[in-house]
């Protein structure tokens, strides 16, 4: 039992809904003529670009090979933040970051999940490789963070313990 | 705690065995079910119904509907027994709860 003496009531930042709810694809159909080709197209996530095969792999090696065509080497310059014990496997905050130069991609893999690849990001020039997100972990597993720099893959890993939910 | 559970599960095994000995009729099963229902109502009024009681009662009703009166009777007897246990628990707690109040 660890008390946190300094913690008093923690007030989360409350935010108003900053932007509207686009009701699905239909909401995209703004005034005809506004949708002028490429500029707008860049705003639409492209389903065809999804690396479905990489996400269907069940081992780290296969997933990374399919995604990047390479195997990673361990590097202390890839940083990952993940809890030792997840409060709930359904929502595990995981951050990845890297001090390597010219990072072009980062990815997170959960080794013992049904499918290994959890999330992968393309990092354009000017975007920092630090990304926070929340993952589902099916059970206690090693989580691997990968960064691609200069065409090479670097990784670090950490075990995250996932226990059952508590009293209810 | 654990002993309570063992005792209860021992009953779950015993009761059906006892019940089937006579080869009960439809009326006997119905009687067992109404006996159980009466005790369940009392337990509910005391805010202490066990999930296992309701599960056994539901099984009794299902068996009765299927015409399996032996099973219906045994499940109903289980339900009645469990309801009685929860009634006794609630009765005891009516007196004992004050011992748990923080001072």
């Amino acid at each position, binding site marked *: 039992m660890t*008390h946190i003496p300094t913690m008093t009531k923690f007030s989360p930042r409350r935010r108003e809904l900053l932007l509207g709810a686009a009701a699905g694809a239909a909401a995209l159909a703004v005034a005809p003529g506004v949708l002028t080709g490429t500029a707008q197209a860049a705003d639409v996530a492209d389903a065809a670009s999804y690396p479905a095969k990489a996400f269907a792999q069940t081992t780290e090696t296969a997933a990374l090979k399919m995604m990047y065509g390479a195997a990673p080497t361990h590097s202390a310059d890839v940083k990952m933040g993940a*809890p030792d014990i997840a409060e709930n496997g359904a929502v595990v905050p995981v951050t990845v970051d890297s001090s390597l130069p010219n990072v072009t991609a980062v990815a997170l893999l959960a080794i013992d999940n049904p499918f290994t690849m959890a999330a992968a990001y393309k990092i354009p020039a000017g975007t920092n490789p630090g990304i926070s997100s929340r993952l589902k972990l099916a059970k206690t597993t090693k989580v691997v963070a990968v960064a691609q720099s200069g065409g090479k893959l670097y990784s670090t890993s950490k075990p995250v313990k996932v226990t059952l939910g508590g*009293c209810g | 705690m654990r*002993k309570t559970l063992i*005792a209860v599960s021992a009953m779950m095994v015993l009761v059906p065995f006892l019940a089937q000995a006579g080869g009960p009729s439809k009326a006997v099963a119905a009687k067992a079910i109404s006996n159980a229902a009466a005790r369940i109502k009392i337990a509910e009024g005391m805010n202490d119904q*066990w999930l296992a009681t309701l599960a056994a009662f539901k099984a009794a009703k299902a068996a009765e509907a299927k015409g399996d009166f032996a099973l219906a009777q045994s499940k109903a007897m289980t339900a009645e027994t469990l309801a009685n246990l929860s009634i006794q628990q609630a009765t005891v707690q009516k007196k004992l709860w004050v*011992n748990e109040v923080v001072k």
Partner: protein
Amino acid sequence: MKSIIMALMGASLALFGPLASARAAAPINPQADLKAFQGYFLKRFPNVPLAAYVNGPYNFSKSEADQWKQIMEFPPYQFALDTGKSLFNAKFPNGKDYASCFPNGGIGIAQNYPMFDAKTGRVVTLGIAVNRCRVANGLKKLKLTTGPMADILAYMTSTSDGKKINVVVPNNPKALAAYQAGKEYFYSRRGQLNFSCASCHVQEAGMHLRGNVLAPALGMTASFPLYRSKWGNMGTLVRRFIGCNKKVHSAPAKPDSAAYRDLAYFLTYMDNGLPVSGPGARP
């Protein structure tokens, strides 16, 4: 054969509780109870200041607290809060709205609930008050456990953020009886596992149970309604009561039952003086 069953029943009964005789019933004194209740926790966990109890289990695990703070950067109840706000502000078919049913238009009043209603002689939770408002305006009641009700309560509660919980037990025999019934419910062991609410949330408070920390009863009501990762959506205090009952193999009461109203009355009264901090997020 029947005697065997009776013997088994007797044997198990003996285990239901300490055989020590009960103390004589004390007069009903909510204020004295409140002082003892809060004092008990403050003495037991001297490092946790009173207001921090609204953080529930997170006072007892740094790792869980860290994850929680990360999650609270963009809290998962945000969608519910936004939905609740628009539901709350929407006009009823008759042109009236929720605001018309509440003092101060329903804004900043959550800290006063549950409330004793002298007219009906019953305890009214904020959820039940919302449903009364709906019925008075010709609408159906909402489910008290989750969904739109939880969203509306999330919004109403958010407008009381930081206000001190201020539940009143008036000097009215029915109000005192309701309070006392809630107290008795809280401390009575029930269910096949023979647990009381207090077994987990007083006696074992702050301890780990299968990976999670058992939240102390003090402060518990302050963060409801809340988003539970386990549920994957919002739930009200009543939903939590139902979950706890089932956990000890006890059949839950009805969401609008006297049992749950009275329990909420007692439990929220014990949180008097703590800041409202709902909606909340828990594992």
